């Protein structure tokens, strides 16, 4: 129940475009709505609409214009500001639609119907969040800072994106199993929580007003990640052969580095704060995020130890966990490495200050690139290590280690697949291009 919210629908052709998009990218959307009351009894029905919080402050809370009236239109900002904000909105929209495409690939492998419907609710709410960002793009004229690109073209571009062509790396990785659906929700949606929270202060009022309804829904997404992980930890402790801590650890190793990179380079973020768009710089926010993950992992490990040693009191469980973390040893057959560990901030990075450093999960340094890649192969799941993403990462890393490229050059050299033309998979005239570091494009597939 939220009574201070105004629901807004996009103009019909754009609303229809989103409806069309979900028919291709979220096939069980109608199934979710059909059984909504069974899995979410008495909850408000899902609404595919933009939700604008009412009664929020009119005053800019941070940055160079602190104390001034919040901006209501792009032209009330400087071209630099509105251009920067436009990029944030487009990136946010990309993540929302991107995560649905990722979830869709493996949601049917959920072990229980309840798990599947939790994930589908997450997907539906991400759809609404994407819709919210389209509303921000379409409700005002951004053409003065978009290089003449119209709102319609921006929407077409966003709805054309697929896994591999999204703005942020985390949304370009395929899920390999339902474990990814869950661990992604626990780790990557947590970045979303931070971004939305930081943007609550946004100097552009329609953006700020979009955040509280999205944040309320994000709370469920985090729980839809953490609670299954807790239950899996309990099953693993009791000897379930199909559910292991190792599979969760491998998924953490895949997603935590990408989550840290979603905050942007650790040396940046000043512009966002100066412009009044966010209230934290990148390093501060990503450090808080990393610490929150530490708490999440400790909670799950506590659940595991308690299930493994049912007679232990809460205090004894905490003592055992403290001791295992300190000694990295064993306790009555339970090894520290049997528990989940938070990957070091430098582990498996390809963006930011730690890009292409070779540092293990527990902070151990590597000097030989082939040893490092073998270590990664042993600590990521099989489906992922055979992927195009890992192949490109290894190529870029080898070029950095050999001195052929600097880390900065290697970061820029990671190519992206981009789908050009055709908002919808129904379209016949689709061209796939590979973007080079310098913005050049090579056609790699036409259908």
């Amino acid at each position, binding site marked *: 129940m939220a009574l201070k919210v105004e629901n807004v629908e996009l103009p019909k052709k754009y609303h229809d475009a989103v409806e069309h998009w979900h028919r291709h990218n979220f096939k069980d959307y109608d199934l979710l709505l059909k059984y909504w009351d069974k899995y979410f009894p*008495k909850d408000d029905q899902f609404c595919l609409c933009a939700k604008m919080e009412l009664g929020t402050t009119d005053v800019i809370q941070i940055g160079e214009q602190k104390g001034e009236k919040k901006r209501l239109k792009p032209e009330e900002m400087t071209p630099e500001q509105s251009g920067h904000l436009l990029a944030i909105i487009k990136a946010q929209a990309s993540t929302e639609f991107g995560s649905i495409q990722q979830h869709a690939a493996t949601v049917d492998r959920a072990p229980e119907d309840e798990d599947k419907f939790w994930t589908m609710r997450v997907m539906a709410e991400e759809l609404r969040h994407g819709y919210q960002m389209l509303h921000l793009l379409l409700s005002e004229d951004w053409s003065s800072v978009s290089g003449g690109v119209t709102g319609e073209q921006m929407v077409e571009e966003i709805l054309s994106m697929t896994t591999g062509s999204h703005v942020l790396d985390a949304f370009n990785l395929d899920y390999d199993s339902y474990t990814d659906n869950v661990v992604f929700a626990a780790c990557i949606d947590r970045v979303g929580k931070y971004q939305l929270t930081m943007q609550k202060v946004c100097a552009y009022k329609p953006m700020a007003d979009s955040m509280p309804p999205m944040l309320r829904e994000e709370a*469920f997404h985090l*729980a839809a990640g953490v609670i299954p992980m807790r239950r899996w930890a309990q099953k693993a402790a009791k000897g379930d052969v199909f559910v292991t801590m190792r599979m969760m650890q491998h998924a953490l190793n895949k997603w935590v580095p990408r989550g840290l990179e979603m905050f942007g380079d650790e040396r940046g973020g000043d512009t966002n704060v100066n412009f009044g768009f966010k209230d934290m710089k990148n390093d501060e926010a990503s450090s808080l995020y990393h610490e929150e993950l530490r708490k999440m992992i400790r909670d799950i490990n506590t659940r595991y130890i308690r299930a493994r040693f049912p007679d232990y009191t809460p205090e004894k469980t905490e003592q055992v966990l403290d001791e295992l973390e300190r000694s990295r040893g064993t306790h009555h057959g339970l090894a520290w490495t049997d528990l989940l560990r938070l990957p070091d901030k430098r582990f498996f990075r390809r963006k930011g200050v730690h890009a292409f450093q070779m540092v293990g999960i527990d902070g151990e340094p590597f000097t030989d690139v082939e040893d490092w890649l073998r270590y990664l192969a042993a600590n990521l799941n099989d489906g992922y290590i055979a992927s195009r993403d890992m192949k490109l990462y290894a190529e870029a890393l080898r070029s950095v280690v050999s001195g052929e490229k600097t880390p900065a050059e290697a970061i820029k050299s990671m190519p992206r697949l981009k789908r050009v033309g055709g908002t919808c998979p129904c379209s016949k005239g689709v061209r796939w291009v590979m973007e080079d570091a310098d913005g050049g494009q090579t056609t790699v597939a036409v259908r």
Partner: protein
Amino acid sequence: MPDVTTDVRIRPLDELDLNGIVRINEKITGAYEPDLWEKRVMFYTRRDPGASQVAEANGKVVGFMLGDCRAGEFGLEEPSGWIERFGIDPDYRGQDLGRRLFDAICAHFKAEGATSVRTLVDQNDAPVAGFLKAIGFGESSLAALERKL
């Protein structure tokens, strides 16, 4: 004995508070019930995020109050706040944390348009009934009825 003199912060519940709530309940009742509390926390997290509150001291949950704002039940069309479960770590009792949790959850209910807050209590549970009376709960024309089956 923990240091209970430090500042206690009241804030909305999140999914990482589960262990703390399970631990408080275990201290009070002696029962370790993570499955039950995972269901309850998931329910309130999706149902009315921001309503349920926890008290935190030194990064540890030392109290909680779970509830949500509802309308359209039992013929009550206007939104009402409902409080279902609460607990204070026995080591932290006597610091008015229950009242502070109650004030925070009520502020949320008011912001959602509620003009009253409701709960059910076992009249045989004197400490809980006494606490609810102390924070202002009184008799209601609505009564909980029960028939054995």
